[in-house]
C-alpha cells in the first residue's frame, strides 16, 4: 500500500515537472510546478524528514509559488491562457538538461545516502542541533544573505519610488497629502 502511494506521489512529482517544462500556457506551467513541489514535500515525508517536508511547503508553496503566481497573474500577458512560449529554444534547453542531469547523477552517486524506509521519527531537534553546532557558519551566512536580499529589495523599490516621484512631482505631493 505504501509503495502504491509512493509511486503515485512520484508520478505526480515527475508529471508536474513535465507539465512545467512542456506546457505552452504560463499559468499551467506554474500549476505544474505547484504540483511537483507538493509531491516532493510528500516524498520527504517518505524519507522521514518531516521538518524538511513542512519547510518545503512553507517556503516553496506558501512563499515562492505565491510570489510566482502573483507576478504571473498581474502581468498583462497572462490573460491569454494559451499563449505560445516564444523563448523556447531547443539547444540551450538540451544543454541545460544535460548539465543538470549530470550534476544530479553525480550527487546521487557521490553522496553517502541512508534510507529509512517505513521508519518515522522526529528530526527537528537533530536539524536544530546540526544548524547550531556543526554548520553554524553556513547557517549564519545564509541569514546574512537573506538580510542583504531584503535590504537590496528595499533599495531597489526606493529607487523606483524616487524615480516615479521625480517624474510626476505635482501628483505625488497630492497623493501624499491625501494619504496622510
Amino acid at each position, binding site marked *: 500500500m505504501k509503495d502504491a502511494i509512493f509511486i503515485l506521489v512520484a508520478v505526480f512529482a515527475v508529471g508536474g515537472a513535465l507539465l512545467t517544462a512542456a506546457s505552452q500556457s504560463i*499559468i499551467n506551467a506554474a500549476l505544474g510546478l505547484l504540483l511537483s513541489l507538493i509531491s516532493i514535500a510528500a516524498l520527504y515525508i517518505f524519507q522521514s524528514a*518531516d521538518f524538511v517536508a513542512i*519547510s518545503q*511547503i*512553507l517556503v516553496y508553496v506558501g512563499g515562492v509559488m*505565491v510570489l510566482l*503566481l502573483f507576478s504571473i497573474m498581474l502581468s498583462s500577458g497572462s490573460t491569454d491562457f494559451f499563449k505560445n512560449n516564444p523563448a523556447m529554444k531547443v539547444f540551450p534547453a538540451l544543454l541545460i538538461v544535460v548539465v543538470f542531469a549530470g550534476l544530479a547523477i553525480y550527487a546521487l552517486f557521490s553522496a553517502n545516502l541512508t534510507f529509512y524506509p517505513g521508519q518515522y521519527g522526529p528530526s*527537528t531537534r537533530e536539524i536544530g542541533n546540526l544548524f547550531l553546532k556543526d554548520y553554524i557558519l553556513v547557517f549564519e551566512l545564509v541569514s546574512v544573505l537573506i538580510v542583504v536580499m531584503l535590504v537590496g529589495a528595499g533599495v531597489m523599490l526606493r529607487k523606483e519610488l524616487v524615480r516615479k516621484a521625480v517624474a510626476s512631482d505635482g501628483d505625488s505631493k497630492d497623493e501624499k497629502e491625501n494619504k496622510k
Partner: protein
Amino acid sequence: MINLIYMFVFSLVYLLLLALTAGILTYVERRIAGRMQSRIGPNRVGIQGILQFIADLIKGVQKEDIIPADAYAFLFKIAPYLVFMGVFLTLVPIPFGAYTLMEDLDVGIYYVLAMASYVVIGLMIGGWASNNKWSLLGGMRSAAQKISYEIPAALGVFIVVIMSGSMNFQKIVAAQGASPVDWFVFRNPFTFIAFNLFFIASLAEGNRVPFDIPEAESELVSGYNTEYSGMRFLFFFLAEWGNLVVIGALVTCMFFGGGSFWYEWKISIPAPGRDPIVFEVLGFLWFLFKTFFFVFVIIWIRWTLPRLRIDQLMDICWKYMVPIGLISSLGIVIWMYFIPENSTIDRIVRLTLTSLGAITVLYFKYRVYKNLKITKATIYANPFV
C-alpha cells in the same frame, strides 16, 4: 491496510465534524449579530432556527453552479476545494484531548503555519480565474495580507516554541497548566505580547474584520468570491468559518492551557488512579468551551469594528507587529536565561499578570453596565429572547 482504513474513517469523521461546526457557526454568528444589532436573526427553521444552516446548505446545492464565460474553468472549479482543504488540513495536529487528535505531529505548529500559507494559493487562483477585476483585486489583497501577517504570527508562535521547547502541541499544552497562572498568556510579558501578536495576525489570516479587506463588500463587491455561486461559494464560506474554529483552537492550545481542566492534571499526562476516559471527555469539553469563547470574541469583533485600509493594514504589520515581535522574541530568550521557572520573580510576575487580566475583565464589565445605564437600554444575555 487496517491502519489506512482507520485513518480514512477518522479523517472523514473530522471532515464531517468540521463542516457541521462551520455550519452551526454560521447560524451562531447570525444570532449573535442579530442580538448586537437589535434584531432577531434566523429563528424559523427548527427550534430557534438551529437548522437554518441545513436549509442554507440545501439552497446552496440547488443553486446553479455558474462558471463565467471567460473564466479559466478548471482553476475556477478547484479553487474553493483548495481553500477548504487547506483549512481542514490545519486541524490535523490540534489536540482536542489527550487522545482526540488525528496525528500527533512532531512539527505541529510549524505544520499549521505551512498549511495556512498554502490556503493563499487557493484564494489567489479563485480570484484570478474568475476573470473579474474585483475578484483579482481581492485575491491579490488576500495574498499580500496573508503573506505579511504570517511573520507576526510566526513570531508569536516562535515565543511559545521557545517557552515550551517543542513544536509538538501536546508538549506545548503540557508545558502549561490548568489554572490561569500557569497559562502562557499570563506567564510573562513577552508571552502576553506573543498572544496578542498571534491573535491579531490570525484575524488577518482568517480575513476577519477589521482585516477583511480581501472581501470588503463596500469596496470590492465581494472580493475573490464575487463570481462564485451555489456549492462552490458555500465551500469558501465553510473554509472561513472552519478557520474560526482553527484560530480558536490554536489560541487555546498555545496560550490558554488547552484541555487541561483540573489543577495539577495535565492533558497528556493523566494522573494515576483517575479514569482516563472521564478526564478525556471533560478535557475535550473544556477545550471546546475555550475554543468557542475565542470564536465568540472573533465574531464580536467582526460586528463591532470598521475595516482598515490596506496601507494602514500593512503599517500595522510591518511598522508595529514585526518589530514588537522581534524585540519580544529576543526578550523571551533573555527572560528565560535570567529568570528560571518557578522562581520567586517568576511567580510574582505570573500572579500580577493574571490579576491584571482579571481586573481588565471586571473593569470592562463595569463599563458595559455603566453604558447600559446611561442609554437606559435593556440587556438580554439570552440570545433566544
